[in-house]
């Protein structure tokens, strides 16, 4: 049975590279594998941007179809996943534009706010504060909180911190400079922290008496 020999010190190619090559050779089942691998992430990213479930379903489908059609244009100098995310982000923004009947939508929206750039709430949180909420209630708090962020901060936070793209990949995906990504990320993190504080504070006194879980 043939084995793949890895040369010491040489980086293994990303497994997506071989899958993409197979798709280019006409093997649709390899694309099936790629879709399975990334459909959850794409759906999540589309939901975060469009904030609408039906739009997210459409975006996810359109993004995978577009990527399939344009696979010849994929250069291979970025990761397939990053390329796919870029398509999904653009599709999501287009979907928002349609919903707002042509009104300009961009990732620069509302970023002029100074809100949250200086921490104001300096009280400590309860240990494991999420334990004080049920799963559904916690998810609702997290959704509401992140939906309140300006679009341009939300997308950067989602790509960088939730989906795990590097700063450079996030910059490339959104067509932003690295310093712009860094500045948006800091402000997104601080704003989210500030907004979550109201739910996660230590409840002094009540905690010890057992009135509050």
């Amino acid at each position, binding site marked *: 049975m043939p084995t793949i020999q890895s040369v010491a010190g040489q980086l293994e190619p990303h497994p997506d590279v071989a899958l993409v090559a197979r798709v280019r050779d006409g093997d*649709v089942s390899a*694309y*099936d594998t790629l*879709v*399975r691998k990334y*459909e*959850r992430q794409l*759906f*999540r990213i589309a*939901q*975060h941007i469009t904030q609408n479930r039906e739009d*997210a*379903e459409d975006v*996810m*489908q359109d993004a*995978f*179809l577009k990527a*399939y*059609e344009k696979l010849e244009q994929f250069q291979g100098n970025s990761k397939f996943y990053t390329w796919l995310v870029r398509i999904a982000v653009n599709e999501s923004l287009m979907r928002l534009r349609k919903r707002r009947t042509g009104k300009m939508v961009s990732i620069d929206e509302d970023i002029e706010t100074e809100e949250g750039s*200086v*921490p104001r709430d*300096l*009280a*400590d*949180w309860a240990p494991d*504060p*999420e334990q004080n909420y049920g799963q559904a209630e*916690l*998810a609702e708090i*997290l*959704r509401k909180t*992140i939906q309140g962020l300006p679009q341009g901060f939300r997308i950067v*936070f989602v790509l960088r*911190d*939730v989906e795990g793209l590097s*700063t450079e990949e996030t910059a490339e995906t959104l067509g932003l400079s690295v310093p712009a990504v*860094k500045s948006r*990320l*800091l402000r997104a*993190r*601080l704003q*989210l*922290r500030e907004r*979550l*504080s109201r739910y*996660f504070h230590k409840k002094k006194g009540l905690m010890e008496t057992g009135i509050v879980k």
Partner: protein
Amino acid sequence: MTCKDFLALLDDLIDDEVSPNMRTELQTHLGRCGHCEVVLNTTRKTIEIYRSHEIYDLPTDLRERLHSAIMARCKKGC
């Protein structure tokens, strides 16, 4: 180091992108500034909570339906 200086390097500290010397300076500031300690810990917790909780779930039946629709169109050449 002031709190403002600390805040400017907060992300680098969280993402582990500071030099050993800078880390020592940041630790020294943290040792005497409870407010910055709270901001650091709660910001870390914010990221961790968003990373570990699925807030937009894709149910299996919907996932399968969308998956089949995508693949059916790819097989037809889109």
